[in-house]
């Protein structure tokens, strides 16, 4: 079952519909409910390699539904510590729980000050309102 629309207020957002949950010098990344809903049921997650570097505002992987492919845009830069194998095995997990079981990767932040450039939930909702 696809999740109901929600945007948790403890997350930081990127206008390309990606979120970051910052925990100390690490962050967990994923895509928002809006992104998952727009794509439809996901059938493929192309993750970066553990140890790879992701760069803010650049693509770090892809998610794919039957109809469309979408780049995953890194909201912040860092080194990939883990990728979510549960999503590789069952990509629809992202539709079911985009902010929980459907997380995509965990990174170590290379520049924690980048977090300041991200949107809070109110600003992200404004982005959505302008879509």
């Amino acid at each position: 079952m696809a999740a109901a629309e929600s945007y948790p207020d403890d997350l930081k957002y990127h206008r390309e519909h990606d979120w970051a949950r910052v925990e100390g010098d690490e962050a967990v990344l994923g895509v928002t409910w809006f992104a998952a809903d727009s794509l439809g049921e996901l059938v493929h997650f192309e993750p970066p390699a553990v140890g790879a570097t992701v760069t803010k505002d650049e693509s770090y992987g892809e998610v794919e539904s039957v109809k469309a492919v979408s780049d995953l845009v890194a909201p912040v830069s860092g080194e990939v510590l883990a990728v979510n194998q549960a999503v590789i095995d069952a990509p629809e997990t992202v539709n079911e729980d985009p902010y929980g079981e459907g997380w995509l990767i965990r990174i170590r932040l290379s520049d924690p000050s980048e977090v300041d450039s991200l949107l809070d939930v109110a600003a992200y909702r404004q982005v959505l309102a302008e879509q």
Partner: protein
Amino acid sequence: MAEDAVALWDAVLARGIVPCGLGARDTLRLEVCYPLHGNDIGPDTDPISAGLGWTCALDKEFTGVEMLRQVKEQGPARRLVAFVMEERAIPRHGMPIAGGGEVTSGSHSPMLDVGIGMGYVPAAQAAPGTGLTIDVRGKPRAARVVKKPIYKREG
């Protein structure tokens, strides 16, 4: 008339009908390997190479028959094959296949839960069981030629 469309649609849905769009239809036709005009066949392809020779009465005279007889006699240089991905990846229309081939249709098969597709490959690569390498946005991904149809419901 047109102003009744919404009411009609709502009435149909109220009967328990589930809407089904082109994406769903495309996976169905691809699983059974029905070629889609504009993707798998078109003005630049011929029915012999596409595996549709059974639709052509080459013993009769019609526009283009000589060319088709020639292709049949010499054997097509390339053939439209069906394939299944052996790695996690979804092939898409236009992706190159190593050795000179090209994907003409690709998607995710809901029934098999793997990437599937059709494409033209050199005749030497067309036998079922042949390994293919598909360029999925710069990444080489393994696939294998299978007999058509890719999927057929039992019974």
